């Protein structure tokens, strides 16, 4: 599904990713952990194609295709979803219209006709229910005036609606209270079960007790310095990052 080879990337003239290798298959759950500044968000943004990030070496292959030079919307239509760490507020952009446009753009790419308003409403209601979100959200602007937790839940809601092939969730767990964390974890599990490859980028082990990863990677200074099973997260929590860095 996703194959990252020797990825080097720069932002603001500074080399942040220094040779990342990662392979994720459909239905798998990977967790990427690492201290602040290790390059976690950069990796997420580079995969989604944020314009300020420049790939200087290596490649990102998605669904068998090199996507290094693709614009962000094309990547999204191919099935890449990024749950943002800090979702922007879009005052005046209505949530419903926004989601419908996104869904129809992706459907068009897959040669499907626009989703009927009825079908959309059903899907929307179902997912709102899943995440226990307020129905009035439809009337509001995207992320505008949302609390930190609401923004994160809104990102997961969008993931459920867009049904991506690959979901990268950048610190989606931070800022959530325990009830919200349960809801979000359930939603991620259900999307994962349907075959979506999932990459959880996180600081904390907490979410991994609800969403079981098959693989855990430690990103440090722009490289993956250690990969292992779920147990690695436990070791990490006990020993701290230093233990893994020194080994290198």
């Amino acid at each position, binding site marked *: 599904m996703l194959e990252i080879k020797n990825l080097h990337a720069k932002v603001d003239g500074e080399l942040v990713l220094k040779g990342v290798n990662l392979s994720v298959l459909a239905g798998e759950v990977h967790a990427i952990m690492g201290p602040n500044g290790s390059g976690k968000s950069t990796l997420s943004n580079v995969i*989604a194609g944020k314009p300020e990030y420049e790939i200087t070496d290596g490649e990102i292959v998605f669904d068998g295709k090199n996507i290094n030079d693709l614009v962000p919307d094309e990547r999204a239509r191919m099935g890449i979803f990024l749950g943002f760490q800090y979702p922007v507020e879009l005052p*005046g952009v209505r949530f419903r219209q926004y989601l419908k446009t996104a869904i129809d753009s992706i459907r068009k790419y897959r040669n499907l006709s626009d989703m009927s308003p009825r079908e959309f409403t059903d899907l929307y209601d179902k997912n709102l229910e899943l995440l226990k979100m307020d129905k009035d959200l439809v009337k509001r602007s995207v992320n505008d005036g949302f609390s930190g937790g609401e923004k994160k839940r809104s990102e997961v809601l969008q993931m459920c609606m867009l049904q991506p092939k690959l979901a990268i969730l950048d610190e989606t767990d931070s800022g959530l209270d325990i009830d919200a964390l349960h809801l979000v974890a359930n939603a991620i599990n259900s999307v994962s079960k349907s075959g979506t490859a999932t990459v959880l980028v996180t600081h904390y082990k907490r979410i991994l007790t609800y969403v079981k990863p098959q693989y855990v990677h430690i990103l440090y200074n722009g490289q993956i310095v250690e990969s292992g099973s779920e147990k690695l997260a436990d070791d990490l929590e006990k020993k701290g990052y230093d233990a893994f860095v020194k080994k290198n």
Partner: protein
Amino acid sequence: MSSFVNWIEKCFPAGDVPGNLSGTLDNFSGEEWKNTNLSVLFETNFILPGANLKISKPVLYFDDFLNLVFVNGIYSESLSNTIVNKDVLIGGFSKNKDKDHRIASYLDQTDVTNDPFKELNNAINKDMAVISLSENQIIDKPIHIMFITTEFDQPVMTCPKILLKLEPGSSCTVVESYFGESQGKYLTNSSTTIEVNDSAKINYYRLLLQGADSFHLGTVDVDLKANASLESTFFSKGSKLSRTELNVLMNGSYSESSINGLYHTVDEQHIDNVINIDHLVPNTKSNLIYKGILEDNSRASYSGKIFVAQDAQKTYALQSDKNLILSDKARVNTKPILEIFADDVECFHGATAGAIAEDAIFYLMSRGIDKKSATEMLIEAFASETIDGINPDAIRQYLYSILLNSKFVLV
């Protein structure tokens, strides 16, 4: 630059200069006229239009509104819904023919001015639009006053005058709109006076939708008494040169004004907004929020001044002017001024100018929406904050439709 006086003399044949215009001074040197280039206007000779009332139903006409239609400055009885009784006066009237005391007493207040264009308006205005509501009169239907200029061989000039007087406790919704059936040059020089007495409430919408070669100069003077309320939206689009001056006096305690503006310029257009809000007594509140979308070689200027007098304690005032610049040749001048002489106040202003935020575009693109659609979505969202505040559904939908029909030139 030729002067106002020279221009007037060119427009009116010798001996025909109306009123005392020949003596009017050129009073355009102040900051408030700094960004308005009148030379293009002064290069054109305008004549007064002859009677030409042959007009089909205006473009923007709603049967469930009370409509007042003025064609080339003349009131059209047949297209309008006149109401005259002891409590309510709604219609078009002539200061010479109609002797209703409500008109006469009102006119006295607007007679004296030192503004040349207001003088011109006083001198050649033909029929006035008048809405006068006695105490506690509430008009439920929106009242739509429209001014239409039809096709002429030569550039014509009309000077609409609008008088709105709300006695204590009364309320109404007024839409004042300007259209042209003509694609040629014409000048509309309007003057609106709004008096909102104690606890009265007005929703006032002013729509400038004139032709690409037209000129518009308009003044709106509002006087708010105790507990009075003004909810307002100013929409400007079209016109080669348009300038709207809005003066609001917060003259009574607990009065509130909420004023939104949206301007959209293309080609070589130039739109000016000059706004003065004077807080003169304690406990008043004003919100002033303008937005601009600029394309091509167009230019917009915003000059807003919040004045808080020494006695006007507990004033709350907010003003902001935000601009989206979609072309490297467009230019925006913005000047949000605070002039404050009372200490117990909360006053804020903000201004922005620039392109659409890159991170917002990226966010939408990361959801699969292409760049062009994402940009259009964000422009519409930008404008919608203003348009959403408009009360009559029909007007709100109409403004959306013309905005969506605009072809934004995207960089």
